């Protein structure tokens, strides 16, 4: 490993010296980035000197949690637009691109940084209208995470269908002994409870719109909601208004037998400093017919703060450096599994040495069942968040009529489309 580190550092130094001559003069002022906390971005801040040597300027990242980052970046980009680089996610690419708050990335991403190396699924969710807008920081699909020890003790094999999942969840649920069958996201948000609910909705054949006509108010949506509510009976306390944090903390604390969650969790689960269940977890694809929730978060070039071509090239250079293979190898070395996006890194011997073959094969398998479950439209965050609140009401029991809830969402969608016209 020491030899690997030496080669890495030496390679980076040579590459930096050569490339700093190439990119000298591209940047004239420090770069401001609006982002949400990610281990890879913290790592970038520790390696700031590398970018300063490359571009002759520095960068500052303002961090806000996911919901606040979404709210602030929309308000900021639509008004003052002071950030050269925005951290955006698959759910708001359409909104940002449609309003020209960001510019297409490929023209400004230096060829030397090999954009084609990114996993194709990540590139797909960062595109809108045939143009590519962000370079991925993280992304992926879903895994079914299961406690090998608990399933073995109960004589249960990892479920491959939803029917099997329901049976296994009921059998493993034993709160008196501190084990809950499953943990689900109940808290509001297009990227929270709706994100997980959509895998059932799409799995049952649901669709969002036919052109401008909403078609989601269907048997598939009713069945998805009923199934989600049924499984919620086995979810730990606190998850009915919780999201990723509450669900993953419950699982990594050893309180949950199985969860279906985004693939980056595997890195945290196998880190014994963060997880009590490291080494006890198995990984496989979500049970049929559930689809995996394809997602991606990445860095995009702001339009207002980068009025000139030179400014856009500078922002593009920062994004290229921040998402380069060298940075991803550094993340791999630091154990930041969730923020790996390049095929060459997944295929590297260092990756195989660091993560078990089960994770690697689950990553390959889950790509086959991963799909885009959300409505790729500028109005998606609005519609998704509205459904998030209604779904939270159903989960927490302040309403119970599912068809009435879907009717309300349909009315809202019709008004949303009318406003857009």
């Amino acid at each position, binding site marked *: 490993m020491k030899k690997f580190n030496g080669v890495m550092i030496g390679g980076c130094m040579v590459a930096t010296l050569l490339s700093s001559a190439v990119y000298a003069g591209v940047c004239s002022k420090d770069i401001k980035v609006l982002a949400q906390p990610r281990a890879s971005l913290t790592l970038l801040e520790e390696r700031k000197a590398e970018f300063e040597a490359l571009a002759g300027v520095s960068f500052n990242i303002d961090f806000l949690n996911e*919901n606040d980052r979404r*709210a602030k970046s929309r308000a900021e980009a639509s008004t003052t637009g002071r950030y050269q680089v925005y951290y955006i996610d698959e759910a708001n690419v359409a909104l940002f691109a449609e309003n020209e708050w960001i510019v297409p990335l490929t023209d400004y991403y230096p060829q030397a940084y090999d954009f084609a190396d990114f996993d194709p699924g990540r590139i797909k969710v960062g595109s809108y209208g045939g143009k590519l807008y962000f370079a991925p920081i993280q992304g992926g699909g879903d895994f079914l995470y299961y406690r090998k020890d608990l399933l073995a003790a109960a004589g249960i094999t990892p479920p491959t269908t939803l029917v099997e999942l329901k049976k296994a969840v009921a059998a493993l649920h034993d709160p008196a002994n501190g084990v809950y069958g499953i943990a689900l996201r109940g808290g*509001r948000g297009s990227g929270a409870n709706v994100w997980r609910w959509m895998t059932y909705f799409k799995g049952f054949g649901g669709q969002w719109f036919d052109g401008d006509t909403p078609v989601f108010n269907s048997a598939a949506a009713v069945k998805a909601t009923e199934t989600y509510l049924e499984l919620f009976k086995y979810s730990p306390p606190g998850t*009915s208004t919780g999201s990723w944090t509450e669900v993953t903390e419950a699982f990594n604390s050893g309180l949950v037998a199985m969860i279906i969650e985004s693939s980056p969790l595997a890195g945290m689960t196998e880190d014994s400093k963060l997880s009590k269940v490291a080494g006890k977890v198995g990984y496989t694809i979500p049970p049929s017919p559930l689809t995996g929730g394809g997602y991606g978060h990445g860095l995009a070039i702001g339009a207002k703060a980068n009025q000139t071509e030179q400014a856009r090239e500078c922002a593009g250079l920062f994004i290229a450096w921040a998402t380069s293979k060298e940075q991803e190898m550094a993340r791999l070395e630091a154990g930041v599994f969730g923020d790996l996006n390049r095929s060459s890194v997944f295929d590297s011997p260092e990756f195989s040495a660091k993560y078990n073959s089960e994770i690697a094969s689950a990553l390959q398998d889950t790509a086959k069942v991963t799909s885009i479950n959300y409505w790729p439209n500028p109005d998606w965050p*609005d519609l998704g*968040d509205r459904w998030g*609140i209604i779904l939270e009401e159903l989960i927490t029991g*302040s309403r119970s009529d599912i068809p009435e809830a879907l009717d309300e969402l349909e009315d809202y969608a019709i008004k949303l489309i009318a406003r857009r016209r």
Partner: protein
Amino acid sequence: MKFKNNLPVVFLTPPMILLAVLAFVPTIAALVISFQNKELGRTGTQFIGFDNYLDLFSDRRFANAMQVSLEWEAITVIGTMLLAVLVAVLLFETTRGRTRALLCTLLIIPVLLPRVTAAFVWKFMFNPLLGIINYPIRELTGAPIEFLSGLQTALISVAVVDIWQWGLFFGVILLKLLETLPKEPFEAAKLDRVKTWELYAYVAIPMLSAPIISLTFIKMVESLRSFDLIYVMTRGGPGIVTETLDMYAFSQGFVESGRISYASAMAVLMLLATIITFTIIFKWVRKWQNV
């Protein structure tokens, strides 16, 4: 002499202009925007008359937010004043000298904490799996209480934090006011062998009615600005159970929809409701004091 007469005008004009700019410009801007269809993420803004206001009256979340705001005001104001009186009387009866001074200092600490910090600390304490409040409950009953996710408990739980911050602080203020009261009425009442609660209910508290009313007004205004506490602890949930008007307006303006005009219409209605309510209460109190 003329210079002397003009002096108040000279001193008052700059702050009045500043106040006018700070208070009226945003208010007028909100009023104008509320008659438009301005949205973040949509180009082209038109005047649409009272459409936003009419939409509000058929919006179930707006009606719910009105009700939650009223409940929030009632719970936090009454809770704060009751706790304040209780703390003041308890300290006045049971402590003296340095002990009292030390306790007063400790009781002021909660209000000095930034609201967001207090909200995060309490949110963690209420956590059903890891929170300290739930630990004994879980040990005794075998199941935790989901304070912030429960339909019946969420609003009260958030209100507890607000009352904890302000009730203890107001308690110290009332204690200092009790210390300033003349001793004679207390001695006279004791000669008549009144019980302790009667002494405070019929002698001390009525003597402090004016500052208590002022503190109540301060708390009423303060409770209107509950956004940060609710945003951190519940985000208006579960569902819309703790969604107050300011929370819903922010949510519509910046979190969910970017509907700035719709949010402005809510803000204007909230402003009007506050002005009318406070004017009525203020007049009612003045009338009551003059009787």
